[in-house]
């Protein structure tokens, strides 16, 4: 039998962690309890973060927004600050798993599980998100792309939790796009995904762009080269076709039960080509 702790605030949390150094920490449980069922968890105790209000909510601070790590995906979908400022996040959350998983799963959990197919990660990369990490005695902040080291591997040390995600507003970017390719329209692990932010001028020219692919490498893939190629042009088929082979070259997909590496490479290219017909 495992003991399950339910701290109500951070003070309590640090105390419990001190007393249970081997405990696994979870928030929504949608990853952890699945791993438990597969006999992959051997810790003697578990700590659930769901009651800690300090870790929830969305706070605006000037041109930055702080998202509490224990905010459920549903709460973020319904949050007007997120809806107003980060439509790309809303698009991704809408196709994450199912409403039931979204009611329970948290953005912090999605980040810390660090699956190569995580739905929130590509867009958090294009939003250049930073994670706030806290322990009993300290607090630090780092770029998300530095925080995630590989499949299931992050910079989190023992005694630490991700407490929040800092995202700068992106007012100039007027086209937010996210596409996820999966085996069905819901409850699907992404086979390939692409998150993009565009700043399109009045003359339909690309002034700025950020792209990030998911599920095509151990971690999210970005490309300064492709971004540079698109800036200063219209999003025409020609320009995108020129950039596409680079996408194929930079991704490092695997063969797995859902799709082959070949398919992933092809689709990583093709999702780029689709951008030419995406509406504002």
């Amino acid at each position: 039998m495992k003991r399950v702790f339910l701290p109500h605030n951070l003070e309590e949390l640090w105390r419990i962690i001190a007393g249970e150094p081997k405990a696994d920490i979870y928030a929504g449980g949608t990853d952890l309890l699945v791993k438990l069922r597969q006999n992959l968890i051997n810790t003697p105790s578990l700590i659930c973060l769901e009651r800690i209000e300090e870790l929830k909510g969305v706070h605006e601070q000037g041109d930055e927004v702080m998202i509490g790590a224990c905010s459920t995906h549903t709460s973020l979908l319904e949050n007007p600050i997120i809806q107003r400022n980060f439509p790309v996040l809303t698009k991704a959350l809408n196709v994450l798993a199912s409403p039931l998983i979204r009611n329970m799963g948290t953005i912090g959990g999605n980040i810390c599980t660090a699956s190569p197919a995580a739905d929130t990660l590509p867009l958090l990369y294009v939003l250049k998100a930073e994670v706030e990490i806290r322990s009993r005695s300290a607090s630090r902040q780092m770029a998300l792309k530095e925080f995630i080291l590989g499949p299931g591997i992050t910079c989190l040390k023992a005694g630490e939790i991700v407490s929040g995600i800092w995202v700068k507003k992106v007012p100039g970017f007027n086209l937010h796009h996210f596409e996820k390719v999966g085996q069905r329209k819901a409850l699907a692990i992404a086979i390939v995904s692409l998150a993009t932010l565009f700043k399109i001028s009045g003359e339909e020219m690309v002034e700025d762009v950020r792209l990030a692919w998911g599920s095509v490498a151990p971690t999210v893939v970005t490309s300064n080269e492709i971004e540079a190629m698109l800036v200063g042009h219209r999003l025409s088929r020609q320009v995108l076709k020129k950039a596409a082979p680079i996408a194929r070259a930079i991704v490092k997909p695997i063969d797995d039960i859902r799709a082959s590496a070949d398919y992933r490479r092809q689709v990583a290219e093709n999702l780029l080509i689709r951008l030419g017909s995406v509406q504002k």
Partner: protein
Amino acid sequence: MKSLEIGRPIPRVDAYSKTTGQERYAADYYGENLVWAGVKRAGIAHALIKDIHIDDAKTLPGVISILTHKDIQGSNRQGMIRKDQPVLADNKVNHCGDAVALVLAEDKASLHKALDLITLDLEPLPGIFDPEKAIGEGAPLVHEGHPQGNVLFKGVLETGDIEIGFKECHAVVEACFELPHQEHAYLETEAGWAILKENGQLKIVVSTQSPFRDRSEVAEALGINVEKVRIIAPYCGGAFGGKDGVTVQTLLGLAVFHCPGRPIKMWWDREESFLASPKRHPARLYYRLGVKPDGALHALDVRFYYDTGPYDHLGGAVMALGLEHACGPYRISNVSLKGFCVYTNSPIGGAFRGFGVPQVTAAMEQMMDMMATQLGLSPFEIRKRNAIRCGDKNPIGISVTGSTGFEECLKTLEEHYLWKKRNEWKSKAGPFKKRGVGIASVMHGMGYGPVVPDFANAKIELTREGKFRVFSGVVDIGQGNASTYLQIAGAILNQDMAHMELVLPDTESALPSGSASASRTTSTFGNALIGAAQSLKHRVLQRAAIYFMAKEIKEVDLIPGGVNHFTTGKEIPLSEMFHILDDSEKVAAYTFTAPTAKENPTEDQNLRLHGVPHLIFSYGVHLCYVEVDELTGNIEVKRYLAVSDCGRIINPQTFEQQIHGGIAQGIGYALCEEFIVKEGRVRTPDLATYIIPTALDVPEMDSIPLESYEPTGPFGLKGAGEISIDGPLPAIANAVADACGVRLFRSPFTPERVLKALKERENREFEH
């Protein structure tokens, strides 16, 4: 309350208790002092069993006992046609899911610990996983000593002369089709609960489609007296063929003797269900079709292989039904059909809604479209020209009798706005999307065929409370037959729902009525019920007539809750009739045996035993709208229409439920349900990896039933439970071909396969 008329869409009687969570499924049975039972499975596809080490597990606290084949008194063999499957494996393991040891424990935790501690000494044997290779030279044998090697069953049906036939053809099309396993994925996994009572009776509550047959199987496999076995079949939480035959019954039957007086529960979790239960047979089909210049089908050569895994489990019957349906609802002058049902070490191939017909329909309906393209005919035209009619001889040489509404289905579809507006819809495809429309014909025979008795025994009684109680003999696995039975009996007895009652199948009180399968559940039992209801009605009215001193029985009739005497206007409640009647008059039983085909297309008695030929067929035509994404290969079904000839519709709502459900499963079979097995090991072991459609993956569906009339069916009804699953795969394949000019011969049509086909087409065009 209105009385239960035939033809009214009356809501199902079980719906209330299911929406409140009160209805108890087999999985919901627990109890005081409960014992938990679980099975250790082989985990390897083909091996000799050298030893089974249970000693460590036996000593665990909480473990009551651990049983192996050594503890089985009887034959230790189960099976519906061939008894070739062990309850607990003895000398050999034949597939990864073989049960090897049975653990009884006080709680789930101890059960799982014990299962982990059991180890098996297995000497691996080379396995065979491809049905064609399994028939070849030097293939490892699954059952040594089986006379035909790995061939469980071979069926041949031939008419005319295909050699000459093909010479006379103007055009010939040839193709090979491959289809994978399909997993039932019923939401209630295999579950049962059992107890050995003091009087020696073994009571089993189980999620099953065949309580009476189960009883015999349990008795024989374990060496117990069949009279001592009572099986109760609650509503199943889905079955679709996967619970036709023994799942937990024999294991529970064995377990009870080792903890008498205590209730025992066995409930397979999802992963175990995937591992151990039978699936739809994977198939490889070689088709060659030739036509005359006017488009008349003239020669058809079919050779197909169904991979039945290591056990019969109705595999022979599945293959035989496929063989019989291989030509589709058409006239063809010369045919040669060869079907092989082959043993391998893959997961067990067994009954699954459609029962061998989805595979051949997938092939034939695509061949029809391929031929239409070759001839420059529309998909409609080629089907219309060859449509089978009542009075024709079908391609296997049997006269088509009974209601045959196939042509009418085609006509109805042709006049439907979805067919007429299709080009307009197709032209509106957005960027990187291609739209297509495809049709497929379907036909599906009902019942068990000419040899296996297809009968039902209905029993109705008048209760003390003045209600009519129907003893259902056929399990309601979700298709709503329990409600339909009440509707049928209620209509004859002129009662409303308040005065009708139904008892779910219990071998102690119901009468043997066959399995809930083969699209027979409403037809065969329905006919028996009509007989029983009429018989009881007559008895009640005879006595009521005397009571009212009526001159003729015509003066009295049943009304909801009573009998009415027209002449005087007097009434007597049914609860009073109960006291007037003697016990022997309060119950009526009636047997109905389904009519069978009189003609014989084959000398092969074994093929006849396995069901060839059937007599009564339902027909239909399906249409679907698809959109293909050229960048991802994703296929989306946007609309679906099924026109069906299933005779008279007793309950339009229940009928539509069946059509919708079959379409949804067919769409899954076509697009996303890829059951991956490598060297006999299941690589898609759960619902996270085996993908079934969600609410977002099934389109709006239209169902149009032709109101035809089948004289042999209750009120003119024909089977409707399976036919709709036969259509989606070929309809979608044809629509995709229409959309992008690519034909997919291997299913499911995953985005990856589609994208590959599109790329290959692009390359071929580039080369030209």
